[in-house]
């Protein structure tokens, strides 16, 4: 009895798969922190705001390098930007598909690219404002503002998406980004 129960529980119950390596997690939460700091706390005109912005830019830079040479789920090849596939994924989800993606799911991948690009846009326009050439030029400031608003919207969607997918698939995605492991429920298909 004991053996049998241990035996089957080992097989039937959820299994843990290591997905996000420490570097991915560290960059993710650091980037979230820099966005929070610059969005809510630092004075927009201050040096601190600039430096936090450069750090955010640097973090995205490291992540992009890691997406080329890093661990498998962290690589571009694990979550290529593929809008058609994203649409197919959304349709499948609406149709009740419960499959779990080890890396980002196709729509989540688009969000990741979107967030990185937006942070880059914020960083670049922010830097331009500090240069003599672009200082005080209207469209640069407006672009910075626009990028920030877009980032806020994206972050909100990102959090909503994580909450939705956690509810849909039963894989706690926040936990996965904290300890790096996705606990995949028994009998779930993995992609």
């Amino acid at each position, binding site marked *: *009895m*004991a*053996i*049998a129960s*241990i*035996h*089957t529980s*080992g*097989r*039937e119950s959820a*299994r843990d*798969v*290591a997905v996000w*390596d*420490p*570097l991915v*997690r*560290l*960059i993710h939460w*650091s980037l979230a922190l820099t966005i929070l700091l610059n969005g809510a706390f630092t004075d927009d005109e201050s040096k601190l705001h600039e430096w936090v912005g*450069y*750090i955010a830019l*640097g*973090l995205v*830079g*490291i992540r992009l*390098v*890691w997406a080329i*040479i*890093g*661990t*498998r*789920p962290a690589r571009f090849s694990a979550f290529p930007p593929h809008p058609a596939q994203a649409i197919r994924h959304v349709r499948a989800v609406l149709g009740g598909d419960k499959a779990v993606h*080890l890396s980002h799911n196709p729509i989540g991948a688009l969000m990741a690219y979107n967030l990185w690009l937006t942070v880059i846009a914020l960083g670049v326009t922010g830097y331009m404002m500090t240069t003599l050439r672009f200082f005080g030029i209207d469209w640069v400031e407006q672009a910075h503002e626009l990028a920030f608003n877009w980032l806020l919207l994206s972050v909100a969607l990102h959090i909503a998406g994580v909450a939705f997918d956690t509810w849909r698939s039963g894989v706690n995605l926040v936990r996965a980004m904290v300890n790096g492991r996705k606990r995949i429920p*028994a*009998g779930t298909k*993995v992609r």
Partner: protein
Amino acid sequence: MKRPKRSVRARGRRATGLACLIVLQSLCALFFIGDVITDVLAGVKPYDVHLTIETLASVTLIGGVAFMMVELRRLLARMDDMDTGLKVARGQMAEVMDEFFDDWNLTAAERDVALMILKGLDNDAIARVRNTASGTVRAQATSIYSKSGTHGRAQFTSLFMEELMSGDFSPRHGSDGFRSAVAKAPDDSLRAE
């Protein structure tokens, strides 16, 4: 008891430490690169000592980052392999035990006791866990030994040790632990049903 789990945890800490270093050093590298670029744009001559040292520092820092990234990848791959190997060994050991217990026609209670014997509990501890008299456990243990044709605890345990050492355990199915761990699981669950 020293168990492999500990070294997995130690490696996990090492990986986290490496990741922190990578982030910090990359940011430093970017700072120096930015400084070099602004210096050059500001018209500092390329053979300026300050600029040369700064450039050298940037190159060295980037080299260090690249090295640490490769090291981190290797460390993580090793951890993954170990994880897979352990899981496979554990699963196969459970199968072996199940087969043996079936062969010997152990009762449910005896299976329970046998498992605890293998896990290293003594009779008193087993009695406490199962809420029975230690005399009962002793009787069950005796029955287990006689059914398995062994003369006691040590010989009983060594039966399984022998199985582990002689068996052909080759958990490596692919070079990459990440995929193989995932790919292996589905047919495992099929077998259990």
